[in-house]
């Protein structure tokens, strides 16, 4: 993102269930000649075969915050490591955080919302989830962690596509889309994905929610979303047993004095169900685009840039979560639209 985040170091969170290929992707990032230097925070020291003096071992310590927010957990080790890394500012361009295969991505992501010092120095660039094309469908049934990792992703690297048939691939993609239709999906063998597609995504991934239409999804991925119900007007309704997504849009500007309290109250009361939220907003009497993203009860937002001449001033929000109170969210949003 321009201006407001340019000073902050981008952090990519690399997640994925056991054996999906996280380490393969990480090794590629570290060994490829891209002219960038990464500080890497890993869980298993020995797995990385690269000599990089900015590889730090982490203990994945999840701390609860005493702030009355029941789902508010952070990675205590990450707070400490990022603080230490800031002493070597200028020695690296970006940070990659690898999580264990069984990790819930929420505490990692929330660390970037809760901690004042972390927020000052670093920004969450994207959650990249590596998924195993052969085994993901099974894991989505028996491992809640795997489903969370898909739900949290901004970018999904669907790996080992060479080990499955075309039909199996379509099936696993449909299952991913039922949970998270908004992530950018790349099919790979041995994690052969352009690094520019996983690193330093920033504004692009947020802009995607503006561009995203059912037609766009179909055109972009070029295959059949057979179990998706693509209605008209961009309102989508997918059917995973317990994970849903919801998208809202308005061509009329929003009333900031109504929208902000509504959004804050929504995540305060329903935040346990809302895994991720994102939005690009157009407020009345405001020539700047406002962007926000959230994890559970935590939100972070700011004016991003001025709306361009000729750019449609459209507000777009997405929520991904469990048992989302869809009608309540839709009704609340409607009331924030200026008439």
């Amino acid at each position, binding site marked *: 993102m321009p201006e407001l985040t340019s000073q902050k170091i981008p952090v990519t969170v690399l997640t994925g269930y056991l054996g999906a290929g996280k380490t393969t992707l990480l090794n590629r990032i570290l060994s490829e000649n891209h002219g960038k230097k990464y500080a890497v925070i890993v869980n298993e*020291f020995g797995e990385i075969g690269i000599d990089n*003096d900015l590889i*730090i*071992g982490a*203990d994945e*310590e999840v*701390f*609860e*915050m*005493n*702030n009355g927010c029941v789902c508010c957990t952070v990675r*205590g*080790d990450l*707070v*400490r*490591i990022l603080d*230490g*890394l800031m*002493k*070597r*500012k200028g020695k690296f361009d970006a940070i990659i955080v690898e999580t264990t295969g069984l990790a819930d991505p929420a505490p990692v992501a929330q660390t970037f919302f809760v*901690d*004042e*010092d972390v927020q000052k120095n670093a920004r969450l660039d994207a959650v990249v989830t590596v998924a195993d094309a052969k085994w993901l469908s099974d894991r989505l049934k028996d491992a809640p962690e795997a489903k969370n990792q898909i739900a949290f992703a901004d970018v999904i690297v669907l790996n080992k596509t060479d080990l499955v048939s075309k039909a199996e691939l379509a099936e696993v993609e449909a299952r991913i889309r039922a949970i998270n239709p908004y992530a950018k999906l790349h099919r790979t063998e041995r994690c052969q994905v352009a690094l520019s597609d996983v690193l330093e995504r920033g504004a692009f991934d947020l802009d995607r929610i503006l561009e995203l239409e059912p037609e766009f999804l179909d055109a972009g991925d070029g295959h059949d979303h057979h179990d998706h119900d693509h209605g008209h007007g961009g309102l989508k309704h997918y059917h995973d047993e317990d994970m849903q997504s919801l998208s809202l849009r308005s061509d009329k500007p929003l009333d900031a004095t109504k929208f902000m309290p509504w959004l804050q109250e929504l995540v305060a009361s329903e935040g346990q169900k809302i895994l991720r939220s994102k939005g690009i907003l157009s407020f009345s009497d405001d020539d700047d685009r406002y962007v926000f993203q959230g994890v559970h009860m935590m939100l972070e937002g700011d004016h991003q840039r001025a709306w361009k001449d000729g750019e449609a001033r459209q507000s777009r929000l997405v929520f991904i979560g469990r048992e989302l109170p869809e009608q309540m969210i839709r009704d609340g949003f409607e009331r924030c639209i200026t008439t």
Partner: protein
Amino acid sequence: MTAFDPGESASIISVTDQVRPVKIGAPVVAVHFLGDRAAFVGAEESVFLVNGEAEISKVAVHAGGILCAASDGARIVMGGDDGKLVALDAKGEVTLLATDAKRRWIDNVALHPDGAVAWSAGKTAFVRSGKAEDKSFDVPSTVGGLAFAPKGLRLAIAHYNGVTLWFPNMVATADVLEWAGSHLAVTFSPDNKFLVTAMHEPALHGWRLADNRHMRMTGYPGRVRSMSWSAGGKGLATSGADTVIMWPFASKDGPMGKEPAMLAPLQARVSAVACHPKQDILAAGYGDGTILMVRLADGAEILVRRNGTVPVAALAWNTKGTLLAFADEEGDAGLLPL
């Protein structure tokens, strides 16, 4: 650029013209005095020794970031992300004290007046005392801070959900003071009656050691990163708010049921505090670069440094209390003789 509107700048006494400027030219994280020289600890690799004439001599101490530093006036002991624990003495000589076997970061260090040194890497705290072999103790989560008690060889190890009090020379099991949350910096009151931690959330937590009674010290808008005991241990000065928050510790109940003093309010957050070693005054540095000297009795202020820079990162008095050293995060530093 000036810190104050014309009305106010006319009324505050300024000693900014008496400061000897020091251009460190590298980010600074701490300052301590070694004899008559101020030792500015860089964010990475080096310490900058500065004499009264503001002449700088640079000493290489670590091959990377410097994560922690403690001083007893005779030496500074530092831990780095190179997995090394090193000491720097007043002559400028560097001694390697320990190297972590797994090259883990040395996150915390503490010094005892009798020469013992403690440090931590991950969940393990180590103590070296005299000629005895190093002893170690594992706590349930990563060590957030270390402090020696003023009497006896007793180490406080702060961690998630509490503080462990460990006697390295005794077989007895360690005591655990519990309080939910992540505890970072830890300090004993100079009279050995209280233990205080700065938490990850914007709050302090304290225990009266006689009966482990809790003391909650809350209300900060930001995390407390700097704490300093006033002369004689009557009060604990802290950063984290837009005034210096000074908790009273003179009575047997400490700050329990009492309001803290709020000194030197500015439109910026206090980033560093250092109490004078002998008199009831303190120096406070702010997020906008301002430094004030404040008299504890009545809150009277003297301007040491004007605003308009990055936050003040380090403040220290020499043991006699005749020299104040300071530096901001980018290494713009100074010495003020009193």
